């Protein structure tokens, strides 16, 4: 006799089978392909691909962009979470919705909006040209576009976390005479540090992998593009081995990010914010 709430055995096998097939076919297989193709010529060739001048400059630029974007967005995330969870003010719901915008909007739009300000026909374009300031097709624009696309991650991780932790400890610290900074560093930060890390690694992964916004803002000048764009360049020039080598690096980044993310979730230090609200 079957339990009242058990599914038919056929449904069970079918469902699990389809799940395995889908994951294998759609997810695991492409990943294996990248790794295989990258190392096809052997380890020495692989290293030489990675140290090619264009690859190196792309890696360098990607790291530099992340170095600017991640701290900026982290500071923003902490500020926004602090404001939202500790205070009542009008427009709070609107603020929270605004923070979600980049998740709904195409990254190309994320690049477009800055091009419309800083590009040649942009609002500030002529002025910038006249003063010789290079923003579009250069580092500042890339940072701005990438920041737009990735800024929700830290905030979205922290807000639910801080809401569930509550204000009690901070209020206690206040009554004991702590000032703002002491409050934050001694009381709040220890509670939220894993949530911050969690948001930061997701922000970082997204920032390093960002393609759409950077496509618009960086153009295709060889020395001034990030890794994802460089992969595209190699690909368009039929230079597949180099494309795969660079792609494998980004894949490694994803793997590490995923591992840390899962580790934090299993240790119950952070909720899964890939799950939408």
């Amino acid at each position, binding site marked *: 006799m079957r339990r009242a*709430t*058990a599914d038919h055995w056929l449904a069970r096998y079918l*469902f699990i089978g*389809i*799940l*395995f097939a*889908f*994951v294998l076919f*759609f*997810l695991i297989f*492409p990943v294996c*392909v*990248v790794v295989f*193709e990258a190392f096809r010529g052997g380890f020495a060739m692989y290293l030489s691909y990675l140290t090619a001048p264009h690859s190196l400059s792309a890696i360098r630029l990607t790291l530099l962009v992340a170095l600017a974007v991640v701290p900026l967005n982290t500071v*923003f995330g902490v*500020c*926004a979470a*602090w*404001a939202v969870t*500790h*205070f009542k*003010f009008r427009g709070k719901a609107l*603020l929270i919705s605004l*923070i979600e915008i980049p998740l*709904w*909007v*195409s*990254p*190309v*739009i994320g690049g477009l*909006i800055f091009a*419309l*300000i800083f*590009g*040649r*026909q942009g*609002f500030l374009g002529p002025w910038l040209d006249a003063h010789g300031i290079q923003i579009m097709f250069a580092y500042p624009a890339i940072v701005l576009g990438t920041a*737009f696309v990735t*800024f929700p991650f830290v905030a979205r991780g922290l807000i639910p976390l801080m809401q569930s932790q509550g204000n009690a400890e901070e209020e206690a610290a*206040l009554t004991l005479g702590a*000032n*703002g900074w002491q409050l934050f560093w001694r009381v709040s930060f220890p509670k939220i540090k894993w949530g911050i890390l969690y948001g930061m690694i997701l922000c970082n*992964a997204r920032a390093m*992998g960002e*393609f*759409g916004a950077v496509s*618009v803002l960086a153009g295709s000048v060889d020395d001034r593009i990030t890794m*994802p764009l460089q992969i*595209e360049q190699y*690909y368009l020039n039929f230079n597949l081995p180099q494309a795969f080598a660079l*792609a494998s690096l980004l*894949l490694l980044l*994803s793997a590490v990010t*995923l591992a840390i*993310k*899962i580790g934090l979730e299993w240790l119950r230090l952070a909720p*899964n914010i*890939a799950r*939408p*609200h």
Partner: protein
Amino acid sequence: MPGFHLTLGFTIFYLSAIVLIPLGALVLKTVTPTADYPSVFTVVGHVVRVATDVRALDSYRLSFGLSFTAALFNAFFGFIAAWALTRYRFHGRRVLDALVDLPFAMPTSVAGLALTQVFSNNGGYLGQLLHEWFGWQIAYTPWGILIALIFIGFPFVVRTLQPVLDDLAVEVEEAAACLGANRWQTFRRVIFPALSPALLTGVMLAFGRGVGEYGSIVFISSMIPYATEITPQLIIIKLEEFDYVGAAGLGLAMLIMSFAIVATVNLVQHYAAKRKGTT
């Protein structure tokens, strides 16, 4: 509690600098006269012309049509995946559960490159076989784009369904069984209605994601105008042609459609919460 002005101030400043002002620029661009379009009417006229041009319409159809189809695929596979992951115990369940986030963590360019390599006609792992056996062409056709969109949208449906499935009290299913419902009836009348808001939300999220997707499509699409050109591509082409106003117009069109999707999702969730009495 200290820090109100500091944190709120910085938050508003940052949001303005990164989001509000640039988005404002987008809207402004569509109504600001320029050298080529000296009056507000001509500017708006150009915007409307570009946004409703056949090429643009074809791109909308492709972007939205394919994203919607991909979202439906993901509704089907995502449902099966969420069900199996929350309700069955089997070897490798935890690993599979972790892998669901893979498309979310992987850069779109890497995904695009990998999928193209798998599905291209010459030298593609599967693409070559499929081409020789069935004459199918996947890469560089809308099919390739569809596969890429299914890939990136998959986590959204699964992750939206899982918490709702977890929360379904087993007593409700037991009650249905005691009342004489067999398993299929229980599913159709009790379980599925409870899940449908979440399913709808997941589909809309996957849909919204697909519409905006660019990185993976660039690799697997041949980008032929009117055939395999998606709207983000068209925007970039307009920028390259220095038609900033036209690009802004297309961007605005996409933005409006994105907001429509968000509004729909919020409505669905609000309605579902009201029904359950948890507002």
